[in-house]
């Protein structure tokens, strides 16, 4: 392919400036600022700050509160990722079997994806409304006195449920297209070779879906860690109290509710490192991504 070049050196730079400045202003500057302020102790009323070195970090690591949030985040991430992937895979396999209906199915589930996280959270809150939420009533009917925003475990279950509900469609689309890219004749060969549909799934379909699965695993971990903020915020309504929260939400709570900018910055730096690690891992994976054919 022939590529057209610019005649002056300044034009391409000029054209890049808007995008670069957005990245600089909204990503790099806050990141650098966060790194910097993670070494300072901020006066709660905003009248100056003192350099404290790594003290913000060490107090985080020795804080039992922070460890509790970390543990919850790990459990939350594991459960949301597992159920989002498992449910989506189940639905995709079913949808794939009734190929003809797949189109409407796909569109229907995509709608859920189009719902913004706070809206999903809000709908979730309504579903779990203390006096008339259908899911609360369902829980009651099996003898579970569901108290959203009051009981830790109840709130955690609701958060997980709504987060999973939100993520299933996108996983479904990926799994379905993964399934549909398995050549028809390969499935037919398996149909002749193995009479058990369960066996065919584990021996042929599942391994061929593995590249899609790995990719989705990373996406879902990232989602559970970071993109569930809106859902959590609606559920706990900014009243952390005894409620469960994830590391990302704690950054917000400590920084904006507790006015502990230094500690909050240290937490976000830790999360930045986590994102970096995940990103590197994902790139490695994409590079090494097994290409059959």
């Amino acid at each position, binding site marked *: 392919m022939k590529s057209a070049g610019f005649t002056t050196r300044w034009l391409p730079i000029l054209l890049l400036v808007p995008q670069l400045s957005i990245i600089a202003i909204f990503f790099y500057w806050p990141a650098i600022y966060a790194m910097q302020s993670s070494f300072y102790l901020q006066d709660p009323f905003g009248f100056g700050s003192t350099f404290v070195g790594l003290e913000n970090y060490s107090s985080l690591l020795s804080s039992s509160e922070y460890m509790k949030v970390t543990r919850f985040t790990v459990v939350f991430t594991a459960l949301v990722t597992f159920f989002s992937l498992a449910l989506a895979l189940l639905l995709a396999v079913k949808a794939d079997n009734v190929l003809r209906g797949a189109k409407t199915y796909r569109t229907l589930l995509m709608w859920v994806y189009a719902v913004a996280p706070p809206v999903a959270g809000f709908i979730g809150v309504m579903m779990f409304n203390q006096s008339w939420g259908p899911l609360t009533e369902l829980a009651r009917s099996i003898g579970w006195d569901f108290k959203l925003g009051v009981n830790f475990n109840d709130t955690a279950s609701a958060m997980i449920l709504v987060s999973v509900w939100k993520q299933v469609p996108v996983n479904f689309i990926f799994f379905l297209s993964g399934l549909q890219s398995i050549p028809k004749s390969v499935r037919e060969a*398996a149909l002749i070779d193995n009479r058990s549909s369960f066996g065919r799934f584990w021996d042929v379909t599942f391994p061929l879906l593995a590249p899609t699965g790995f990719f989705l695993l990373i996406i879902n971990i990232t989602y559970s860690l970071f993109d569930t903020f809106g859902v959590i915020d609606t559920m706990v309504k900014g009243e952390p109290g005894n409620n469960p929260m994830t590391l990302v939400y704690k950054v917000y709570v400590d920084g904006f509710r507790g006015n502990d900018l230094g500690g909050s910055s240290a937490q976000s730096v830790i999360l930045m490192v986590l994102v970096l690690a995940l990103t590197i891992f994902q790139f490695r994976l994409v590079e090494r991504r097994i290409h059959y054919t």
Partner: protein
Amino acid sequence: MARVHLETIRKIYPNGFEAVTPTSFDIPDGEFVVLVGPSGCGKSTLLRMIAGLEDITEGTLSIGDRVVNGVDPADRDIAMVFQNYALYPHMTVRRNIAYGLQNRKIDKATIEQKVQEAATMLNLTEYLDRKPAQLSGGQRQRVAMGRAIVRDPALFLFDEPLSNLDAKLRNQMRIEIKALQRRLGVTSIYVTHDQVEAMTMADRIIVMNGGKVEQIGTPHEVYHNPASTFVASFMGAPPMNLLEARFEDGMVRINGGTPVMPAPAARTGNVTLGIRPEDVRIDDAGDIPFHVDLVEELGAHRLLHGQLGDQTFSIHAMKDEPAPQGATRLSLIPDNICLFDSETGKRI
């Protein structure tokens, strides 16, 4: 090994399209049958119904003594070779070949022995630990064959297994498949759109067109005694020459009056005359004028293409026979002429 019997088998796809009209035939034990016809005529549909990959809309299918209409593909005792090989990309060659046996509760030692035997037979021994992506097209084709062979099925099904290979490899694999089938004696149904494959491999050919069987016969019968103008023009390269002719005064006349043979009892009107290019001679004393436009040199023989009256016509000439350009004369071998109804195209 088994006999296969189709009784008025019919296929109507869910969209209402009738891909196979009611079709009946019988394949004796050990026979190699080739289903041939143009693309879209329903060959794969018919084969896939036999494999169980497609529901049979109407009719009865038996393999051996068993009616298998409702039987799962895995329980029909068949093995199939697909056009794009359909190997499992994530499994080694060894596992690809063994997979069908592993699911049939056969002990490990027997499986290993069968895989080795098949690999030796197909020259695959040194590739057993590779993945399909690391093999050439011809080698993948062999793995697909190996997968079928180890199963020792009652019936082999092939759906255009050679059409993804280059011409040279195709000729070689054609011979190998045929030899292998002879040796194993397994009843086989082979689908192709290539009439050369059909002619060279088949014990019997089934010619299909538009979802219907046009003719069933040995390669010799189908070539020399085509049942319709469709078969006449589909089989053979170049195809049989078809000329518009008339019954007149007890003779078949072409080219506005030249008599070529006596008419069958009491027929009048139009008729289509068919004659193979090799049943025509350049003959200065012949009474049919012919104009040669183009000579195709093929080494051992030549093809002379031109005009007979206002119709196109081709002649086959051996390398030491004359191959004139321009105006010349012909004679036909009357015994080898086939007559077809000019309306229905059926043989008279």
